Protein backbone atom coordinates (compact mmCIF):
# COMPACT_ATOMS: atom_id res chain seq x y z
CA UNK A 1 0.00 0.00 0.00
CA UNK A 2 1.36 3.38 -0.93
CA UNK A 3 1.77 5.69 2.01
CA UNK A 4 1.36 9.35 1.21
CA UNK A 5 1.66 12.01 3.84
CA UNK A 6 -1.58 13.90 4.50
CA UNK A 7 -0.17 17.15 3.17
CA UNK A 8 0.42 15.56 -0.22
CA UNK A 9 -3.15 14.30 -0.43
CA UNK A 10 -4.60 15.84 -3.56
CA UNK A 11 -8.35 16.00 -3.00
CA UNK A 12 -8.89 17.65 -6.37
CA UNK A 13 -7.28 14.79 -8.20
CA UNK A 14 -9.27 12.31 -6.10
CA UNK A 15 -12.42 14.22 -6.88
CA UNK A 16 -11.69 14.25 -10.59
CA UNK A 17 -12.01 10.45 -10.58
CA UNK A 18 -15.70 10.70 -9.63
CA UNK A 19 -17.70 11.57 -12.76
CA UNK A 20 -20.88 12.59 -10.94
CA UNK A 21 -19.00 15.13 -8.83
CA UNK A 22 -17.70 16.85 -11.93
CA UNK A 23 -21.11 17.57 -13.35
CA UNK A 24 -21.83 21.26 -13.65
CA UNK A 25 -25.05 22.18 -11.92
CA UNK A 26 -26.64 25.59 -12.06
CA UNK A 27 -24.82 26.33 -8.80
CA UNK A 28 -21.51 24.85 -9.96
CA UNK A 29 -20.07 21.48 -9.05
CA UNK A 30 -22.18 19.53 -6.57
CA UNK A 31 -21.01 19.73 -2.97
CA UNK A 32 -21.75 16.18 -1.93
CA UNK A 33 -21.93 15.86 1.86
CA UNK A 34 -24.03 12.73 2.17
CA UNK A 35 -21.45 9.97 1.87
CA UNK A 36 -22.49 8.48 5.21
CA UNK A 37 -25.73 7.50 3.48
CA UNK A 38 -24.09 6.40 0.24
CA UNK A 39 -20.76 7.34 -1.30
CA UNK A 40 -20.21 8.17 -4.97
CA UNK A 41 -18.29 5.80 -7.21
CA UNK A 42 -14.97 6.42 -8.95
CA UNK A 43 -14.60 5.68 -12.68
CA UNK A 44 -12.63 2.55 -11.87
CA UNK A 45 -15.62 0.98 -10.11
CA UNK A 46 -18.07 2.00 -12.82
CA UNK A 47 -15.67 0.65 -15.46
CA UNK A 48 -15.40 -2.66 -13.64
CA UNK A 49 -19.18 -3.04 -13.53
CA UNK A 50 -19.26 -2.33 -17.25
CA UNK A 51 -16.45 -4.76 -17.92
CA UNK A 52 -18.29 -7.60 -16.16
CA UNK A 53 -21.59 -6.82 -17.85
CA UNK A 54 -20.10 -6.41 -21.31
CA UNK A 55 -17.42 -9.04 -21.35
CA UNK A 56 -18.13 -12.11 -19.25
CA UNK A 57 -21.31 -11.89 -17.22
CA UNK A 58 -22.83 -15.21 -16.14
CA UNK A 59 -24.34 -16.59 -13.00
CA UNK A 60 -21.84 -17.65 -10.37
CA UNK A 61 -20.72 -21.07 -9.19
CA UNK A 62 -22.79 -23.06 -11.63
CA UNK A 63 -21.73 -22.65 -15.21
CA UNK A 64 -19.23 -25.01 -16.78
CA UNK A 65 -18.28 -22.50 -19.43
CA UNK A 66 -15.64 -19.85 -19.68
CA UNK A 67 -17.77 -16.87 -18.62
CA UNK A 68 -18.91 -18.69 -15.52
CA UNK A 69 -15.36 -19.65 -14.65
CA UNK A 70 -14.20 -16.05 -15.05
CA UNK A 71 -17.02 -14.81 -12.81
CA UNK A 72 -16.10 -17.33 -10.11
CA UNK A 73 -12.48 -16.25 -10.33
CA UNK A 74 -13.38 -12.57 -10.06
CA UNK A 75 -15.68 -13.19 -7.09
CA UNK A 76 -13.02 -15.12 -5.21
CA UNK A 77 -10.47 -12.41 -5.98
CA UNK A 78 -12.88 -9.84 -4.54
CA UNK A 79 -13.35 -11.92 -1.40
CA UNK A 80 -9.59 -12.06 -0.91
CA UNK A 81 -9.20 -8.31 -1.35
CA UNK A 82 -11.94 -7.67 1.16
CA UNK A 83 -10.42 -10.13 3.62
CA UNK A 84 -7.00 -8.55 3.47
CA UNK A 85 -8.48 -5.03 3.62
CA UNK A 86 -10.02 -5.74 7.04
CA UNK A 87 -7.17 -7.89 8.28
CA UNK A 88 -8.94 -11.26 7.98
CA UNK A 89 -6.84 -14.35 7.33
CA UNK A 90 -8.87 -15.83 4.50
CA UNK A 91 -11.42 -15.05 1.80
CA UNK A 92 -13.52 -17.93 3.10
CA UNK A 93 -14.32 -15.77 6.15
CA UNK A 94 -16.10 -13.28 3.92
CA UNK A 95 -19.75 -13.95 3.10
CA UNK A 96 -21.43 -11.70 0.58
CA UNK A 97 -24.79 -10.35 1.64
CA UNK A 98 -27.11 -7.58 0.47
CA UNK A 99 -25.73 -4.98 2.86
CA UNK A 100 -25.22 -4.16 6.50
CA UNK A 101 -28.91 -4.52 7.29
CA UNK A 102 -29.31 -8.04 5.97
CA UNK A 103 -25.91 -9.00 7.37
CA UNK A 104 -26.82 -7.92 10.89
CA UNK A 105 -30.14 -9.75 10.65
CA UNK A 106 -28.31 -12.89 9.56
CA UNK A 107 -25.94 -12.62 12.50
CA UNK A 108 -28.68 -11.80 15.00
CA UNK A 109 -31.08 -14.53 13.99
CA UNK A 110 -28.61 -17.03 12.54
CA UNK A 111 -26.34 -16.96 15.58
CA UNK A 112 -28.59 -15.70 18.35
CA UNK A 113 -31.88 -17.47 17.87
CA UNK A 114 -30.67 -20.91 18.93
CA UNK A 115 -28.37 -19.59 21.66
CA UNK A 116 -30.34 -17.02 23.61
CA UNK A 117 -32.53 -18.03 26.52
CA UNK A 118 -34.64 -16.17 29.03
CA UNK A 119 -32.28 -14.43 31.44
CA UNK A 120 -29.60 -13.88 28.79
CA UNK A 121 -28.74 -10.36 27.77
CA UNK A 122 -27.86 -8.59 24.54
CA UNK A 123 -25.98 -5.33 24.96
CA UNK A 124 -26.18 -2.57 22.38
CA UNK A 125 -25.93 1.23 22.50
CA UNK A 126 -28.46 4.04 22.07
CA UNK A 127 -26.48 5.35 19.09
CA UNK A 128 -27.12 2.28 16.91
CA UNK A 129 -28.61 2.58 13.46
CA UNK A 130 -32.00 0.82 13.35
CA UNK A 131 -30.25 -1.97 11.41
CA UNK A 132 -28.23 -2.80 14.54
CA UNK A 133 -31.05 -2.04 16.94
CA UNK A 134 -34.29 -3.53 15.69
CA UNK A 135 -32.99 -7.06 14.89
CA UNK A 136 -31.80 -7.38 18.51
CA UNK A 137 -35.01 -5.89 19.82
CA UNK A 138 -36.96 -8.49 17.85
CA UNK A 139 -34.59 -11.31 18.76
CA UNK A 140 -34.85 -10.77 22.51
CA UNK A 141 -38.61 -10.60 22.22
CA UNK A 142 -38.59 -13.97 20.46
CA UNK A 143 -36.14 -15.68 22.82
CA UNK A 144 -37.12 -14.14 26.15
CA UNK A 145 -33.70 -12.54 26.54
CA UNK A 146 -33.24 -8.90 27.60
CA UNK A 147 -31.86 -5.94 25.67
CA UNK A 148 -29.52 -3.63 27.57
CA UNK A 149 -27.91 -0.33 26.66
CA UNK A 150 -24.43 0.93 27.28
CA UNK A 151 -24.98 4.50 28.47
CA UNK A 152 -23.61 7.56 26.69
CA UNK A 153 -21.72 10.48 28.12
CA UNK A 154 -23.17 13.97 27.73
CA UNK A 155 -21.06 14.58 24.62
CA UNK A 156 -22.18 11.36 22.93
CA UNK A 157 -19.43 8.85 23.66
CA UNK A 158 -19.85 5.48 25.30
CA UNK A 159 -19.43 5.79 29.03
CA UNK A 160 -16.48 3.50 29.68
CA UNK A 161 -17.02 3.62 33.43
CA UNK A 162 -20.34 1.79 32.98
CA UNK A 163 -19.00 -1.06 30.83
CA UNK A 164 -18.46 -3.49 33.70
CA UNK A 165 -21.91 -2.84 35.13
CA UNK A 166 -23.68 -3.53 31.86
CA UNK A 167 -21.53 -6.31 30.38
CA UNK A 168 -21.90 -9.18 32.82
CA UNK A 169 -21.98 -12.96 32.93
CA UNK A 170 -25.54 -12.79 31.64
CA UNK A 171 -24.38 -11.03 28.46
CA UNK A 172 -24.27 -13.29 25.39
CA UNK A 173 -23.87 -10.69 22.65
CA UNK A 174 -22.43 -7.17 22.55
CA UNK A 175 -23.37 -5.42 19.29
CA UNK A 176 -22.01 -1.94 18.60
CA UNK A 177 -21.31 0.32 15.69
CA UNK A 178 -17.63 1.01 15.16
CA UNK A 179 -18.64 4.57 14.32
CA UNK A 180 -21.96 6.34 14.80
CA UNK A 181 -23.71 7.47 11.63
CA UNK A 182 -24.99 10.59 13.44
CA UNK A 183 -22.65 11.57 16.25
CA UNK A 184 -19.60 10.36 14.36
CA UNK A 185 -18.35 8.84 17.62
CA UNK A 186 -15.68 6.17 17.14
CA UNK A 187 -16.27 3.41 19.66
CA UNK A 188 -13.59 1.43 21.53
CA UNK A 189 -14.28 -1.84 19.73
CA UNK A 190 -11.25 -3.79 20.89
CA UNK A 191 -11.89 -2.84 24.51
CA UNK A 192 -15.51 -3.94 24.16
CA UNK A 193 -14.47 -7.19 22.47
CA UNK A 194 -12.08 -7.93 25.32
CA UNK A 195 -14.76 -7.32 27.93
CA UNK A 196 -17.34 -9.32 25.97
CA UNK A 197 -14.97 -12.28 25.67
CA UNK A 198 -14.11 -12.04 29.34
CA UNK A 199 -17.73 -12.79 30.23
CA UNK A 200 -18.15 -15.39 27.47
CA UNK A 201 -20.06 -13.13 25.07
CA UNK A 202 -19.38 -12.36 21.42
CA UNK A 203 -18.74 -8.94 19.88
CA UNK A 204 -20.68 -8.00 16.75
CA UNK A 205 -19.38 -4.87 15.02
CA UNK A 206 -21.50 -2.77 12.68
CA UNK A 207 -18.67 -1.41 10.57
CA UNK A 208 -20.82 0.42 8.01
CA UNK A 209 -19.43 3.85 8.89
CA UNK A 210 -15.85 3.20 9.91
CA UNK A 211 -14.66 0.61 7.38
CA UNK A 212 -14.66 3.16 4.51
CA UNK A 213 -12.86 5.83 6.50
CA UNK A 214 -10.24 4.31 8.77
CA UNK A 215 -8.20 1.10 8.84
CA UNK A 216 -9.91 -1.99 10.20
CA UNK A 217 -8.15 -4.92 11.78
CA UNK A 218 -10.54 -7.66 12.79
CA UNK A 219 -7.73 -9.73 14.25
CA UNK A 220 -6.23 -7.17 16.58
CA UNK A 221 -9.69 -5.87 17.52
CA UNK A 222 -10.69 -9.51 18.01
CA UNK A 223 -14.26 -9.05 16.81
CA UNK A 224 -16.40 -12.13 16.27
CA UNK A 225 -18.43 -10.62 13.44
CA UNK A 226 -18.02 -7.47 11.38
CA UNK A 227 -20.63 -6.33 8.88
CA UNK A 228 -20.46 -3.51 6.34
CA UNK A 229 -21.97 -2.26 3.05
CA UNK A 230 -20.41 -1.81 -0.39
CA UNK A 231 -22.17 1.43 -1.24
CA UNK A 232 -20.58 3.40 1.58
CA UNK A 233 -17.06 2.48 0.48
CA UNK A 234 -17.26 3.82 -3.09
CA UNK A 235 -18.70 0.51 -4.26
CA UNK A 236 -22.06 -0.60 -5.62
CA UNK A 237 -25.38 -0.85 -3.81
CA UNK A 238 -26.95 -4.21 -3.10
CA UNK A 239 -23.81 -5.85 -1.77
CA UNK A 240 -22.37 -6.08 1.70
CA UNK A 241 -20.09 -8.27 3.73
CA UNK A 242 -20.27 -10.46 6.80
CA UNK A 243 -16.85 -11.24 8.21
CA UNK A 244 -16.76 -13.89 10.89
CA UNK A 245 -13.98 -15.39 12.96
CA UNK A 246 -13.60 -18.80 11.30
CA UNK A 247 -15.24 -20.78 14.11
CA UNK A 248 -18.01 -18.22 14.61
CA UNK A 249 -18.96 -18.12 10.96
CA UNK A 250 -19.50 -21.87 11.15
CA UNK A 251 -21.87 -21.29 14.06
CA UNK A 252 -24.29 -19.07 12.12
CA UNK A 253 -27.34 -20.98 10.93
CA UNK A 254 -28.71 -19.90 7.58
CA UNK A 255 -31.89 -17.84 7.83
CA UNK A 256 -32.42 -17.56 4.08
CA UNK A 257 -32.65 -20.73 2.03
CA UNK A 258 -32.22 -21.76 -1.60
CA UNK A 259 -29.70 -21.52 -4.41
CA UNK A 260 -26.02 -22.21 -3.92
CA UNK A 261 -26.26 -22.41 -0.13
CA UNK A 262 -27.70 -25.91 -0.62
CA UNK A 263 -25.67 -29.09 -0.95
CA UNK A 264 -28.46 -31.67 -0.96
CA UNK A 265 -32.23 -31.64 -0.72
CA UNK A 266 -34.48 -34.64 -0.24
CA UNK A 267 -38.22 -34.81 0.23
CA UNK A 268 -37.72 -34.62 3.99
CA UNK A 269 -34.57 -32.70 4.68
CA UNK A 270 -31.83 -30.42 3.37
CA UNK A 271 -28.11 -30.06 3.86
CA UNK A 272 -26.09 -26.92 3.45
CA UNK A 273 -23.01 -26.12 1.42
CA UNK A 274 -19.79 -25.10 3.15
CA UNK A 275 -19.19 -21.66 4.66
CA UNK A 276 -19.40 -18.99 3.31
CA UNK A 277 -21.71 -20.37 0.57
CA UNK A 278 -24.09 -21.53 3.33
CA UNK A 279 -24.85 -17.90 4.04
CA UNK A 280 -25.25 -16.81 0.42
CA UNK A 281 -28.73 -17.94 -0.58
CA UNK A 282 -30.02 -17.18 -4.05
CA UNK A 283 -28.14 -15.54 -6.88
CA UNK A 284 -25.49 -13.21 -5.54
CA UNK A 285 -25.28 -9.54 -6.52
CA UNK A 286 -22.51 -10.73 -8.82
CA UNK A 287 -21.47 -7.58 -10.63
CA UNK A 288 -21.68 -5.59 -7.41
CA UNK A 289 -19.66 -8.07 -5.38
CA UNK A 290 -16.91 -8.07 -8.00
CA UNK A 291 -16.88 -4.28 -8.28
CA UNK A 292 -16.69 -4.01 -4.49
CA UNK A 293 -13.24 -5.57 -4.83
CA UNK A 294 -12.36 -2.79 -7.27
CA UNK A 295 -13.63 -0.18 -4.80
CA UNK A 296 -11.31 -1.69 -2.19
CA UNK A 297 -8.43 -1.54 -4.68
CA UNK A 298 -9.24 2.10 -5.25
CA UNK A 299 -9.17 2.86 -1.53
CA UNK A 300 -5.88 1.00 -1.15
CA UNK A 301 -4.32 2.85 -4.07
CA UNK A 302 -5.50 6.20 -2.79
CA UNK A 303 -4.29 5.22 0.66
CA UNK A 304 -6.74 4.70 3.52
CA UNK A 305 -4.43 6.35 6.05
CA UNK A 306 -4.19 9.48 3.95
CA UNK A 307 -7.92 9.48 3.17
CA UNK A 308 -8.51 9.31 6.91
CA UNK A 309 -6.12 12.15 7.66
CA UNK A 310 -7.66 14.27 4.93
CA UNK A 311 -11.22 13.68 6.16
CA UNK A 312 -10.21 14.45 9.74
CA UNK A 313 -8.74 17.76 8.64
CA UNK A 314 -11.98 18.61 6.82
CA UNK A 315 -13.88 17.63 9.97
CA UNK A 316 -11.76 19.87 12.18
CA UNK A 317 -12.05 22.84 9.85
CA UNK A 318 -15.80 22.37 9.26
CA UNK A 319 -16.41 22.06 13.00
CA UNK A 320 -14.46 25.22 13.72
CA UNK A 321 -16.25 27.20 11.00
CA UNK A 322 -19.73 25.91 11.86
CA UNK A 323 -19.29 26.74 15.52
CA UNK A 324 -18.90 30.40 14.51
CA UNK A 325 -22.47 30.42 13.18
CA UNK A 326 -24.95 31.84 15.70
CA UNK A 327 -27.44 29.30 17.05
CA UNK A 328 -25.33 26.36 15.84
CA UNK A 329 -25.48 23.16 17.84
CA UNK A 330 -23.41 20.14 16.84
CA UNK A 331 -24.41 16.77 18.26
CA UNK A 332 -21.57 14.47 19.22
CA UNK A 333 -18.10 14.69 20.71
CA UNK A 334 -15.24 16.93 19.63
CA UNK A 335 -13.41 15.96 16.42
CA UNK A 336 -10.66 14.02 18.18
CA UNK A 337 -13.21 11.38 19.23
CA UNK A 338 -15.06 11.04 15.98
CA UNK A 339 -15.03 10.46 12.25
CA UNK A 340 -15.99 12.98 9.60
CA UNK A 341 -19.72 13.29 10.27
CA UNK A 342 -21.38 16.42 11.63
CA UNK A 343 -25.01 16.30 12.75
CA UNK A 344 -26.28 19.72 13.67
CA UNK A 345 -29.18 22.06 14.19
CA UNK A 346 -29.37 25.80 13.84
CA UNK A 347 -31.67 27.43 16.35
CA UNK A 348 -35.04 28.40 14.85
CA UNK A 349 -34.22 26.67 11.59
CA UNK A 350 -36.08 23.45 10.85
CA UNK A 351 -33.63 20.73 9.72
CA UNK A 352 -35.60 19.98 6.57
CA UNK A 353 -35.93 23.66 5.69
CA UNK A 354 -32.19 23.93 6.20
CA UNK A 355 -31.48 20.91 3.97
CA UNK A 356 -33.83 22.33 1.33
CA UNK A 357 -32.06 25.70 1.39
CA UNK A 358 -28.63 24.03 1.22
CA UNK A 359 -29.87 22.08 -1.81
CA UNK A 360 -30.63 25.39 -3.49
CA UNK A 361 -26.95 26.20 -3.12
CA UNK A 362 -25.92 22.82 -4.55
CA UNK A 363 -24.91 21.55 -1.10
CA UNK A 364 -26.27 18.06 -0.53
CA UNK A 365 -26.85 17.10 3.09
CA UNK A 366 -29.38 14.82 4.75
CA UNK A 367 -31.96 15.68 7.36
CA UNK A 368 -34.17 13.60 9.61
CA UNK A 369 -33.52 10.93 12.20
CA UNK A 370 -30.97 9.07 10.02
CA UNK A 371 -32.50 5.73 11.10
CA UNK A 372 -31.57 6.43 14.72
CA UNK A 373 -34.86 7.33 16.36
CA UNK A 374 -33.86 6.14 19.85
CA UNK A 375 -30.75 8.33 19.68
CA UNK A 376 -32.75 11.35 18.57
CA UNK A 377 -35.18 10.74 21.39
CA UNK A 378 -32.25 10.80 23.76
CA UNK A 379 -30.98 14.01 22.15
CA UNK A 380 -34.45 15.47 22.59
CA UNK A 381 -34.93 16.36 18.92
CA UNK A 382 -36.88 14.69 16.12
CA UNK A 383 -34.40 15.52 13.41
CA UNK A 384 -30.93 16.82 12.65
CA UNK A 385 -29.18 17.97 9.50
CA UNK A 386 -26.11 15.87 8.72
CA UNK A 387 -23.02 16.68 6.68
CA UNK A 388 -20.68 13.75 6.12
CA UNK A 389 -17.33 13.79 4.36
CA UNK A 390 -15.41 11.38 2.15
CA UNK A 391 -12.13 11.22 0.26
CA UNK A 392 -13.36 13.47 -2.55
CA UNK A 393 -14.50 16.39 -0.40
CA UNK A 394 -12.38 19.53 -0.35
CA UNK A 395 -11.86 22.60 1.82
CA UNK A 396 -13.87 24.43 -0.82
CA UNK A 397 -16.80 22.14 0.03
CA UNK A 398 -16.48 23.15 3.68
CA UNK A 399 -16.51 26.77 2.63
CA UNK A 400 -19.60 26.28 0.48
CA UNK A 401 -21.38 24.50 3.32
CA UNK A 402 -20.74 27.42 5.65
CA UNK A 403 -21.91 29.95 3.08
CA UNK A 404 -24.99 27.91 2.25
CA UNK A 405 -25.96 27.84 5.93
CA UNK A 406 -25.56 31.62 6.03
CA UNK A 407 -27.79 31.82 2.95
CA UNK A 408 -30.43 29.70 4.72
CA UNK A 409 -30.26 31.91 7.80
CA UNK A 410 -30.77 35.01 5.67
CA UNK A 411 -33.65 33.53 3.69
CA UNK A 412 -35.34 32.37 6.86
CA UNK A 413 -34.84 35.80 8.38
CA UNK A 414 -32.49 34.83 11.16
CA UNK A 415 -30.11 37.65 10.30
Amino acid at each position, binding site marked *: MSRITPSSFDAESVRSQFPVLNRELKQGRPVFLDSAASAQKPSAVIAKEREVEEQYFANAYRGRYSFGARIDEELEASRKKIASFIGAASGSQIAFTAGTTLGLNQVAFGWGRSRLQPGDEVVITPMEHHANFVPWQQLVRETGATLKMLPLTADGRLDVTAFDDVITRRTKIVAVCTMSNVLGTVNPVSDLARRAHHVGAILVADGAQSVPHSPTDVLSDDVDFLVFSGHKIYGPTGVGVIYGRADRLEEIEPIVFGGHMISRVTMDDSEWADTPARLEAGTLPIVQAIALGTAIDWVNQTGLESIHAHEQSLLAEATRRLMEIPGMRIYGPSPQYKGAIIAFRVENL*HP*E*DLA*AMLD*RRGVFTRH*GHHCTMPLHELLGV*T*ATTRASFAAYNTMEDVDKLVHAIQFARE*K*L*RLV
Partner: protein
Amino acid sequence: MAGQVSLVQIRIMSIDELLEEFEDLLDWEEQCDFLIDLGFELPKFSADLKNEENIVKGCQSLVWLVAEPEVSDGVTVVCIRADSDSMIVRGLIAVLLAAYSEKTPQQILDLDIEALFQRMGLNQHLSSTRRNGLHGMVRRIRSIAASNCT
Protein backbone atom coordinates in the same frame (compact mmCIF):
# COMPACT_ATOMS: atom_id res chain seq x y z
CA MET B 1 -62.08 33.07 18.51
CA ALA B 2 -64.28 34.45 15.75
CA GLY B 3 -62.06 37.52 15.63
CA GLN B 4 -58.98 35.37 15.25
CA VAL B 5 -60.55 33.44 12.40
CA SER B 6 -61.52 36.50 10.40
CA LEU B 7 -58.01 37.81 10.87
CA VAL B 8 -56.73 34.63 9.23
CA GLN B 9 -59.18 34.96 6.41
CA ILE B 10 -58.24 38.54 5.65
CA ARG B 11 -54.72 37.40 5.00
CA ILE B 12 -55.58 34.42 2.86
CA MET B 13 -55.44 35.25 -0.78
CA SER B 14 -57.65 33.32 -3.12
CA ILE B 15 -56.09 30.31 -4.74
CA ASP B 16 -56.35 31.98 -8.15
CA GLU B 17 -54.43 35.03 -6.98
CA LEU B 18 -51.88 32.79 -5.37
CA LEU B 19 -51.40 30.70 -8.50
CA GLU B 20 -51.10 33.76 -10.65
CA GLU B 21 -48.29 35.11 -8.53
CA PHE B 22 -46.65 31.72 -8.17
CA GLU B 23 -46.61 31.02 -11.88
CA ASP B 24 -45.17 34.42 -12.68
CA LEU B 25 -42.06 33.49 -10.77
CA LEU B 26 -39.01 32.48 -12.71
CA ASP B 27 -37.98 29.22 -11.14
CA TRP B 28 -38.14 27.05 -8.04
CA GLU B 29 -35.70 29.38 -6.26
CA GLU B 30 -38.17 32.22 -6.44
CA GLN B 31 -41.15 29.97 -5.83
CA CYS B 32 -39.50 28.59 -2.72
CA ASP B 33 -38.87 32.15 -1.49
CA PHE B 34 -42.52 32.92 -2.19
CA LEU B 35 -43.62 29.90 -0.10
CA ILE B 36 -41.35 31.08 2.70
CA ASP B 37 -42.93 34.55 2.50
CA LEU B 38 -46.38 32.97 2.74
CA GLY B 39 -45.08 30.97 5.68
CA PHE B 40 -43.97 34.10 7.50
CA GLU B 41 -47.39 35.67 6.96
CA LEU B 42 -49.35 32.71 8.28
CA PRO B 43 -50.64 33.35 11.80
CA LYS B 44 -48.98 31.24 14.48
CA PHE B 45 -50.84 28.84 16.75
CA SER B 46 -50.95 29.60 20.43
CA ALA B 47 -49.32 26.99 22.65
CA ASP B 48 -52.63 25.40 23.69
CA LEU B 49 -53.54 24.59 20.08
CA LYS B 50 -50.24 22.79 19.62
CA ASN B 51 -51.58 19.72 21.37
CA GLU B 52 -51.32 16.03 20.61
CA GLU B 53 -54.86 15.87 19.24
CA ASN B 54 -54.18 18.48 16.56
CA ILE B 55 -50.95 16.90 15.31
CA VAL B 56 -51.17 15.59 11.76
CA LYS B 57 -49.58 12.17 11.46
CA GLY B 58 -47.31 11.34 8.55
CA CYS B 59 -45.42 14.63 8.61
CA GLN B 60 -41.76 14.65 9.52
CA SER B 61 -42.14 18.29 10.43
CA LEU B 62 -44.59 18.98 13.21
CA VAL B 63 -47.93 20.06 11.83
CA TRP B 64 -50.97 21.04 13.88
CA LEU B 65 -54.30 21.42 12.17
CA VAL B 66 -57.73 22.48 13.35
CA ALA B 67 -60.72 22.35 11.02
CA GLU B 68 -64.18 23.16 12.26
CA PRO B 69 -67.52 23.59 10.54
CA GLU B 70 -68.88 27.12 10.74
CA VAL B 71 -72.22 28.43 9.62
CA SER B 72 -71.86 31.57 7.57
CA ASP B 73 -74.87 33.06 5.79
CA GLY B 74 -76.81 29.90 6.41
CA VAL B 75 -74.26 27.62 4.73
CA THR B 76 -71.86 25.36 6.52
CA VAL B 77 -68.26 26.04 5.53
CA VAL B 78 -65.17 24.42 6.95
CA CYS B 79 -62.84 26.77 8.71
CA ILE B 80 -59.26 25.53 8.67
CA ARG B 81 -56.22 26.72 10.52
CA ALA B 82 -52.81 25.08 10.75
CA ASP B 83 -49.27 25.67 11.88
CA SER B 84 -45.90 23.95 11.61
CA ASP B 85 -42.40 24.16 13.02
CA SER B 86 -41.08 24.37 9.45
CA MET B 87 -41.32 27.62 7.53
CA ILE B 88 -41.56 25.95 4.13
CA VAL B 89 -44.37 23.73 5.45
CA ARG B 90 -46.10 26.86 6.76
CA GLY B 91 -45.95 28.18 3.18
CA LEU B 92 -47.54 24.95 1.95
CA ILE B 93 -50.21 25.30 4.62
CA ALA B 94 -50.98 28.75 3.25
CA VAL B 95 -51.49 27.16 -0.18
CA LEU B 96 -53.86 24.58 1.30
CA LEU B 97 -55.78 27.23 3.18
CA ALA B 98 -56.14 29.28 0.01
CA ALA B 99 -57.47 26.23 -1.80
CA TYR B 100 -59.79 25.00 0.92
CA SER B 101 -60.89 28.02 2.92
CA GLU B 102 -64.52 29.09 2.90
CA LYS B 103 -65.51 25.92 1.08
CA THR B 104 -68.44 23.72 1.96
CA PRO B 105 -67.65 20.14 2.91
CA GLN B 106 -68.88 18.98 -0.48
CA GLN B 107 -66.73 21.52 -2.32
CA ILE B 108 -63.73 20.33 -0.32
CA LEU B 109 -64.39 16.73 -1.25
CA ASP B 110 -64.83 17.65 -4.90
CA LEU B 111 -61.63 19.67 -5.15
CA ASP B 112 -58.85 17.97 -7.14
CA ILE B 113 -55.95 19.03 -4.94
CA GLU B 114 -53.53 16.71 -6.74
CA ALA B 115 -54.04 18.73 -9.91
CA LEU B 116 -53.10 21.87 -7.97
CA PHE B 117 -49.92 20.26 -6.64
CA GLN B 118 -49.06 19.13 -10.17
CA ARG B 119 -49.63 22.59 -11.55
CA MET B 120 -47.36 24.09 -8.92
CA GLY B 121 -44.70 21.44 -9.53
CA LEU B 122 -44.70 20.58 -5.84
CA ASN B 123 -44.35 16.85 -6.40
CA GLN B 124 -41.12 17.54 -8.20
CA HIS B 125 -39.61 19.94 -5.68
CA LEU B 126 -40.65 18.48 -2.36
CA SER B 127 -38.99 15.54 -0.65
CA SER B 128 -41.03 12.38 -0.33
CA THR B 129 -41.50 13.00 3.40
CA ARG B 130 -42.83 16.47 2.68
CA ARG B 131 -45.19 15.08 0.02
CA ASN B 132 -46.43 12.50 2.52
CA GLY B 133 -46.94 15.25 5.06
CA LEU B 134 -48.87 17.35 2.59
CA HIS B 135 -51.09 14.37 1.79
CA GLY B 136 -51.54 13.77 5.52
CA MET B 137 -52.92 17.30 5.87
CA VAL B 138 -55.19 16.81 2.87
CA ARG B 139 -56.49 13.54 4.33
CA ARG B 140 -57.23 15.21 7.64
CA ILE B 141 -59.08 18.08 5.98
CA ARG B 142 -61.05 15.72 3.76
CA SER B 143 -62.04 13.46 6.61
CA ILE B 144 -63.31 16.43 8.60
CA ALA B 145 -65.21 17.59 5.53
CA ALA B 146 -66.64 14.10 5.02
CA SER B 147 -67.91 13.95 8.59
CA ASN B 148 -69.63 17.30 8.11
CA CYS B 149 -71.28 16.45 4.82
CA THR B 150 -75.04 16.36 4.91
